[in-house]
Every structure is written in C-alpha cells, then in structure tokens.
C-alpha cells in the first residue's frame, strides 16, 4: 500500500514536470507542439554526452542540457512557428516533421541502441518494501521545486502576467501594449528548458534511446487534455491521477496494461468533455 503511494507520487511528479512545458505552449500559442517530446530526447542525450562522454560534473550537465533545450525552443519559435504564424495545422505538422528529424539526428550522432544513464544520485533507499532510487526521489523533488517556481513566476512577475494575459486574450493583450511575439518566444524558451530537464529525469527513470520521445509526448498530451488546456493546477492534479492509475494497474493487474488504461482515459475524456476535466482556457 505504502509502496503504491510512494511509487505513485514519484511517477506523478515526473509526469507533471513533463506535461507542464507542453501546457505552456498550448495555452499561450494555442499550438500543439508535437516536437515537445524531442526536447526530452535532446535533453537526455545532452546530459548523457556531457557526463558520460566528456565527464563534466552532473549538475553542470543538467544545466547545459537545460541551456540546449532553451536554445532549441527559441530556434524553433524563430524558424518555424513565427514564419507560419496563424496556420495551426502547418505548425503542428512541421513540429511533427522536426521531431522525426531530431530523432534521426540523434541516431546519427549516438547510434540506434539504447544507453544506460548513470543515476544522478546513486543509491537506493528501501521504504516499506519499495525500492526508491535516490535519483527518482530527486527527480520528484526537483519537479515540485520547478513547478512551484514556475507558478510563482507566472503569478508574480511582469513577464509571467503578460503570459497570462496573452493566454486569455492575445488581441486584448496586444492592445494593452504587450509584445506578444516576445512573450511567445519566452514561453517557447521556458518550454524547451523544462522539456530538456524533464528529459534528463525521464531518461534516468526509463532508458535513453532515439524513440524515447513518443511516450512522454503522449503522456504530456494526456495530462494536458484531461487536465484542461493551460491549467497548471489541472495539469498537476491529472498528472497524479494518471501516475497513480498506472502504478495501481501495474501493481494489481498487469504491468503491460498500464498504457491501455491511460489511452482509454484520454479518449473517453476527449470525446465526452473536449475541454478537459478542469477546462479553463487560461493559465
């Protein structure tokens, strides 16, 4: 019982971190960023490269991965999203193409086989029969720290409030003198950073391989859809619903069924309540 609780909390924290970067883009740019999974991919591989190939300290590597994710987010905004502005279908399709391009770039640089990522903090603690690697614990704690920081940033800084304004009403925000382009770019940068950091944790949770971006993308999509577009609180709650559901299913039913329940949940919610459970189209 306690084991389920602990594993559920750890997995949910990670899912929340994965989903929140995706939520930001959807609520502000109203665009499905299908290349979001690729941030995780690039973040994971960047971390792998800096620690295990170059031998940098782990925290420096996480930081560098975050910087690369940030740069990637900005580049994508400047090169793809801005030129195609207004054409959602075109942006979504280009992001899908970009994701596949990045995946092949990774294959080209690191090969097709999967890599084992050394844990950020080695060691395992046994709690009530559950093995809790320090790495996962650290990932969950970091998720919470980052989410709270993001929440404070959006509520109380000038830029954060501008983001809120754009997400509610882009035209109105433009009239009040908010530079929507700048806000968009900052959002893409934050989203890229969050994605890359989430990628480091996700890769150490599972494994590092070129196709690893699809599963977190679907999780992000699931959390965001079920939680309601753009609601950070909703994202947090649903990350926990999905996280706990997966842990419960794999503990009490069968591990291979856990993805099925997630998909059925997404489809049911989308069809029955297209705006999500906590649907407000704002931050």
């Amino acid at each position, binding site marked *: 019982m306690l084991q389920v609780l602990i594993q559920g909390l750890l997995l949910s924290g990670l899912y929340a971190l994965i989903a929140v970067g995706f939520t930001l883009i959807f609520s502000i740019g109203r*665009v*499905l960023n*299908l290349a979001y999974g690729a941030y995780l991919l690039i973040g994971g591989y960047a971390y792998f490269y800096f620690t295990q190939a170059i031998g940098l300290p782990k925290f420096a590597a996480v930081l560098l991965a975050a910087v690369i994710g940030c740069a990637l987010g900005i580049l994508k905004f400047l090169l*793809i999203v801005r*030129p*195609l502005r207004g*054409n*959602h*279908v*075109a942006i*979504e*399709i*280009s992001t*899908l*193409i*970009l994701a*596949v*391009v990045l*995946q*092949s*770039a990774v*294959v*080209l640089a690191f090969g*097709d086989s999967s890599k084992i990522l050394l844990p950020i903090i080695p060691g395992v603690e046994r709690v009530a029969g559950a093995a809790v690697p320090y790495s996962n614990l650290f990932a969950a704690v970091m998720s919470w720290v980052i989410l709270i920081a993001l929440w404070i940033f959006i509520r109380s800084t000038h830029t954060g409030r501008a983001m809120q304004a754009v997400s509610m009403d882009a035209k109105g925000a433009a009239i009040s003198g908010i530079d929507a382009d700048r806000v968009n770019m900052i959002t893409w940068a934050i989203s890229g950073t969050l994605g890359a950091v989430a990628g480091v944790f996700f890769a150490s949770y599972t494994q590092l391989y*070129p196709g690893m971006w*699809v599963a977190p993308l*679907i999780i992000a*999509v*699931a959390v965001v*859809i079920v939680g309601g577009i753009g609601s950070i609180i909703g994202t947090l709650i649903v990350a926990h619903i999905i996280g706990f559901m997966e842990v419960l299913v794999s503990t009490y039913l*069968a591990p*291979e*069924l856990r*993805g*099925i329940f997630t*998909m*059925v949940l*997404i*489809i049911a919610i*989308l*069809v029955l309540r*297209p705006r999500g459970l906590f649907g407000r189209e704002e931050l």
Partner: protein
Amino acid sequence: MGLRWYHFALWIAFIGVMFALPEYVSKGTLRTLIFANFLAVFAISWDVLSGRTGYISFGHPFLIGIGAYTSAILTKRFDFPLEASIPIAVLVTMVGGLVVLLPALRIRGSYFALVTLAYMELMYQLVQVIRPDLTGGTRGMSGLPTLTRGAENGFYMSTCLMLAVALSTWLLMRTRLGTALSAIGMNEDAVSGSGLSVTRLKMVAFLFSAMLAGLGGAMYVHYLGSIAPRALFDINFVFTIIVAALIGGAGTTIGPIIGAFFLTFLLEYLRPWLPGAERYLIYGGVALVLYMIQPKGIFELVRQSLSKLRRAT
C-alpha cells in the same frame, strides 16, 4: 464533372508508363515501386479525410491496422480464403473505425489529431496484450498467404490497386461531393451555413478514407506475408504517410502519388550512403524545407511554374 480531353490523355499516359516500367527497370527498383504504390494508396486515403476536410489524422495506421490484422487473423487462424478475408477486412475497417471514431468527429482541430494519435497507441498496446494467440502479440505474425509471387507480379498487383484507388478517388472528388469536402477544410461553419449537414459529410469522407485504408492494409499484409505491430503502429509510419500527402500536394489526388514516389525514391537513393535510420534526417529535412516553402506541395509548385511558362510564351 468537367472532364476534358487532356484528363483522359494524362491518365492513359500515366497508366501506360506504369505498365511499361517492368520492361525497363531492375527487380530492385520494382520492389521500391511496390512500396511507393502502397504508400500512395495510404496517402490518398489520408488525404480524403485530412487533406480535404482539414481533420488531421495522426493515427491513420489505426485504420490500416484494422484492415491488416482482420485479414491476417482470418486467413491465418480461421483459414479463410483471401477472396473472402480482404472484403471482410475492408468492411470491418469501415464499421469498426466508424464506431470508435464517430464520437471523435464531433471534436475539432488539434483535439481530433490527438484522439487519433491516442487511438493508434491504444491499438498498438491492445494487439500485444489482448488475445496474443490471435494477433501474435509483440512479434506479430508471419507465414501469411500471399497474393503474388515475384517482384514483377507484385508490381502489377500493387500498380493495379494504386491506379484503381487513384482513379476512383479522383472521379469521386471531382463531383460536388469533393467540392463540399474541400469547403469543410476551408470553413466548416460556412458549409453548415449553406445548409449542408457537416457531420454527415465528414462521416462520408471518413468511411471512404477507411475503405481505402482497410483495402490497402489488407493487400499490403498479403504482399508482405507478415505483420509486426512495431512497424505498423509507428510514428515514423504516420510521418511518412502524412509527409507524402503534404509535400505532393494535399487536397488533390495526384499530389499524394507524387509525394509517395518522391519520398520512396529519395529514401532509396540515400541508401547507398546512409544505410541506417539517418536517412530520415536528410529525408525529414528535405520534407520540412519543401513544406515551409510551399505548404500546398510539389503539385502546386509544378502548376505555378507551368502557368508562368505559359504566360512567358
């Protein structure tokens, strides 16, 4: 329908070239062409739904998979003859797809794309877990009855399929139905404001698309003689279908064919230099650049340069 003499001339020329090909090209190229033919069928099927009505499906392998698995299971586990299993597979794809996706046709835009992606992933997980004695589980099935033997016969079979699909789609889309479907893609509210039941039109587009996907999927599986879930429900496969339709020219019938042949041969010509998945880097890059230059695809690029030429002379 506004058929002109040059329409006939172009179709006859196209059919003639396709059937003359085995005389001039190698067996290896024929095998590439077979894949291009199947990809063209899938891309046309995607285009009928997504290219025209603007309802982007990211889960088209879901439909292809229903057709492929139905026919594979019927022949392998229940000894159905191919003549029966393929039509049944097409029907099952249409009915099954409609039952699951009917509620999804209510929702618009990005949400529809997400539901279809979720369906594909669900199907991938289900075939591995539910009744693996029927579906072959993670490893899939092999040793299925095949329709033809040899590259040449396979080429004729796939070419006939592709041409039949292309010609019937082209004719159907030239009717007022085609105009109405394209109108949905441009402005759905204005279509319903013109007194047309948009939901029924989307359903017709979906059924036709599912029919082609089911037919293509069933024929493909009996060309290969095997089926593997990882290759079928793969995001790279979705990507190839969508990109073929888009860079050829979405919303047209010839566009997806051009796109399918262009992509298949691009991939094939890169093979000697880049044998692995790295080919997708070049291929994806080319697709991305082409798409950013002209979202309406190669067909539109050709059309524009032709009309420029005409104006110049």
